């Protein structure tokens, strides 16, 4: 009896790490296969695949930022508003006639400063939970964005400014057709995700982010400056929202008041679907990417099949609950009590 249990246990120990790491990718692959059979002509066409990546481009930046925050057992509700404010600042600077290289870095700086504001507020004002600080800044940043723009859209950017969100990398030299281009935003997603994968997994700061989420007291007792790391995390989250603003500026060619409305909830949903734990310390960059992709493919696939957007809401909500329930089951089995 004992032997059997041990055998089961050791098999479990062998499989669990892989399931934890790649289980969500399995779900993604299954979804792609199902969608392919439902829409064999369209779904995996060059045009549709690049379309999915273009659609998830700015959401993937917000989700990555929120993911790091969630790993510390925090939450950032203000990413949508940070993106909108950064976008409005970009639009105003662009309209003022600043050269493109200035216009391009303004949303990044603005986003970073908004995140820094969140981080300092949470640590210096000793807010009982990041939820409260970022709920406040959700209103503050969007209000500020409307104040400086007068609440009206500002449109028309130069091609340089639009490059990251709208640019195309020509692949005709590979013998492909003119319509088979590579969106610049896809390359950007890949680069940003690889950089942050390295940051989270291969650097001490990344390791400490996980440690803070696992047990903040242990981190403190180990001599880690927890508040400093938290400020870095929220600042990076803001910075990524700034990149999101730059991509959105390229895609829409406009700064508009409703930009990123409720996108913080999409970002949180992508993290949760991707296996990040709300209690902190758990989740992978790859998982977040899968979470973003799953939401993107679901929306795209349901659009292709002419399913109403109301059903899309119901389905995405169901997937969140299901994904977390699977996580609960996994934790029950995986940890000793």
């Amino acid at each position, binding site marked *: 009896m004992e032997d059997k249990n041990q055998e089961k246990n050791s098999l479990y*120990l062998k499989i669990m790490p892989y399931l934890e790491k790649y289980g969500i990718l399995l779900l993604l692959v299954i979804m792609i296969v199902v969608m392919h059979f439902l829409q064999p002509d369209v779904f995996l066409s060059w045009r549709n695949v690049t379309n999915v990546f273009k659609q998830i481009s700015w959401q993937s930046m917000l989700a990555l930022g929120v993911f790091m925050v969630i790993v510390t057992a925090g939450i950032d509700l203000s990413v949508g508003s940070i993106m909108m404010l950064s976008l409005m600042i970009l639009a105003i600077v662009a309209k003022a006639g600043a050269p493109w290289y200035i216009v391009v870095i303004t949303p990044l700086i603005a986003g970073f400063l908004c995140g820094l504001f969140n981080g300092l507020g949470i640590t210096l004002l000793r807010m009982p939970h990041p939820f409260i600080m970022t709920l406040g800044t959700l209103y503050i940043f969007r209000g500020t964005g409307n104040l400086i723009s007068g609440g009206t859209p500002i449109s028309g950017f130069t091609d340089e400014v639009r490059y990251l969100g709208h640019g195309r990398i020509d692949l005709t030299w590979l013998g492909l057709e003119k319509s088979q281009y590579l969106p610049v935003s896809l390359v950007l997603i890949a680069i940003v995700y690889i950089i942050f994968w*390295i940051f989270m997994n*291969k*650097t*001490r700061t990344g*390791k*400490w982010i*996980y*440690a803070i*989420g*696992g*047990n903040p*007291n*242990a*981190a403190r*007792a*180990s*001599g*880690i400056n927890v508040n400093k790391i938290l400020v870095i995390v929220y600042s990076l989250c803001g910075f990524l929202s700034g990149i999101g603003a730059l991509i959105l500026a390229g895609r829409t060619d406009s700064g508009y008041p409703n930009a990123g409305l409720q996108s913080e909830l999409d970002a949180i949903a992508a993290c949760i679907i991707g296996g990040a734990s709300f209690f902190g*310390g*758990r989740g992978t960059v790859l998982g977040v990417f899968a979470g973003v992709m799953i939401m993107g493919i679901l929306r795209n696939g349901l659009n292709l099949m002419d399913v109403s957007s109301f059903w899309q809401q119901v389905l995405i909500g169901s997937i969140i609950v299901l994904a977390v329930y699977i996580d609960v089951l996994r934790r029950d089995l*995986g*940890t*000793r009590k």
Partner: protein
Amino acid sequence: MSSINQLLLEAKSVTKYFGTITALENVNLKIHAGECLGVVGDNGAGKSTLMKVLSGLYKPSAGSLFFDGKEKILESPKDSQNLGLEMVYQDLALAGNLPIGENIFLGREPTKNLGLLKFLDYKKIKDLTDAHLGKLKINVKSADQKVEELSGGQRQAVAIARSTAFNAKVVIMDEPTAALAIKEVGKVLDLINSLKQTGVGVIVISHRMDDIFAVCDRVMALFQGTNFAESELSKTSRDEVIGWIMGKK
């Protein structure tokens, strides 16, 4: 034996006031290499305060600390760590989501440089962890196992391994067996014995007479913030030590 071995840490007439309350009054403590000192006392006797003074978390109101015979003033726990003193906390300061090795090296991870960038050296963490666990005869399946998958006793062993991974000379353990199942207590006590053999001085705060009499060489009792009694373990008995805790000689 304690007279032969090197004196690692000495506290001389340490006094600590919190406002008008006297938490410690003229308390003395000595710990030698390879020795285990048991500190007993009722709740509020001043055990925790004394340990916090030793680790630099509290500054004594009067009195002095000598590390290796030299007087030192501690500004923070970082200072005492640098002098080779480590604490093992009762609530086991470990991050359950991280593997054993990364917990042991948390905050002090070895890195390798790639140009200007520093990256974690996972291989070194694993090798050092295996070697260190081997030295302390701690058995775990793998250094890559997450701490949350371990039993309470194994976690306590990891916490102790963590405290001694950086050449600690003195390790203070606060109730090291309080949270453990009975069958695991023995393993932790064995670990304390093997620590002593490596020349570390161990201070154990415990309520369990079984623990004190299994690993300690000397026992001292605090009562109402003062040194109440002290003895070589061989020259006292359980009943006498329990009496000291209650303030009876």
